[in-house]
């Protein structure tokens, strides 16, 4: 009963966030911010990807992941369109949400591989460690992306030494928080519930097929 009510609330939150995104699209058209019209349209498309995946490919992403994706997109679009990046710590907040999303995704993938793939079997604490390390490494790759963009196109994606390290620090914190939450969810058996559908679908569509190919 409690599980169903949580799911219902999750779906309501997801729809509310999508409505906010559509409102942001309306604002961008009203103010004729051409860049953000495209930006918002792209964000709306990305936020509907979980629905498309479910309807057309029978892949069910965890609802938490769906909500995190929409929040991260909404914060970014809202920040750019409404000038919220000038608010103190807003940039840190968006960075934290994105890193937390990456950490959650990493945990989901590692957990599913641990459950269904013979090539990986991990203790929950080893998983937590790998999530932290993956989140930091993804943060570094993101910084490479900004650094190379700045070199090639003369942009100012990276604001300097302190800002880069601050971003990496936020990635680390997000990874650690997700690792603690993840271990706690695994202990209670909740992480299994969250990833159950996606795990089975990935197993059927990818892992088993690959293993058959390897056997052949």
């Amino acid at each position: 009963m409690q599980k169903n009510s949580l799911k219902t609330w999750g779906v309501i939150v997801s729809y509310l966030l999508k409505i906010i995104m559509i409102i942001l699209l309306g604002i961008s058209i009203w103010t004729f911010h051409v860049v953000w019209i495209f930006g918002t349209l792209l964000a709306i498309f990305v936020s509907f990807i979980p629905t498309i995946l479910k309807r057309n490919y029978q892949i069910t992403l965890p609802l938490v992941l769906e909500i995190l994706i929409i929040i991260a997109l909404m914060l970014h679009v809202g920040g750019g369109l409404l000038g919220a990046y000038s608010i103190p710590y807003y940039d840190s907040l968006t960075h934290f949400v994105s890193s937390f999303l990456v950490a959650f995704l990493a945990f989901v993938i590692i957990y599913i591989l641990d459950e269904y793939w013979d090539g990986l079997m991990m203790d929950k604490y080893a998983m937590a460690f790998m999530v932290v390390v993956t989140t930091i490494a993804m943060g570094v790759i993101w910084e490479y992306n900004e650094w190379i963009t700045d070199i090639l196109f003369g942009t100012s994606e990276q604001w300097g030494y302190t800002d880069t390290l601050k971003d990496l620090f936020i990635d680390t914190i997000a990874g650690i928080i997700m690792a603690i939450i993840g271990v706690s969810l695994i202990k209670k058996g909740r992480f299994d519930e969250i990833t159950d559908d996606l795990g089975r679908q990935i197993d059927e569509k990818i892992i088993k097929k690959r293993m058959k190919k390897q056997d052949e």
Partner: protein
Amino acid sequence: MNKINIFCRKKCFSFSILLRVVMIISLILAIWKKDWVWVIGTFIGIFISFLPSILKQDIKITLPWLLDFLIAVVLILHVGGRLLDYYYTIPYYQLVTRFFISILVAFIALAIIYILDEHWDGLKMDKYAMAFLTVIFTMAVGVFLEFIKWFNLSGYYFIGAVTEAAKNNVLMMNLSADTIAGLIIAIIGVNLIKTGKFDKMTDDFSDQVDRLVIDRLEKKK
């Protein structure tokens, strides 16, 4: 093949001893220059580089010879950089040192993952997953090294640049060196695992860690 291995092992071992001799000379130089901070630094360096041999005698631990060798290389580069000011006078000396530190970190990471995979029930990994973890672990350790500099935890702040943009450039170059080192060790490691050489390299150490640490912890559980 075995002859080559024995030859290499002997050569590298003697090179490792040679490097330690150079480090002792560095210590004498530090005392002569009355650079007391670096006297302590070099002394710690020598102690760490002799640690594998000390461990071997006292608790019967045999570190892989490559690890022994890498520890010596890293320490000599670092001591040279600080004592002889090579960090400031030789272009990219700091980057080369950082690269070797990361090679050492990556090798330690791969060896630990491999040993845990072999002896611990809590970790079973495909060799490519091991390689992936080695790369991301090396990158993460690199970030921690940068945090130490950022918070000035070492009490020593070497950046080699003044402006924010230039400092950022040095930071990104360092992180690139970590990633490249991780990738190199991961590629070599997978190859060595495939041919069974990594197993030979870590065999003694692996059994000793299993007996001294993993078995004891599992018994306690």
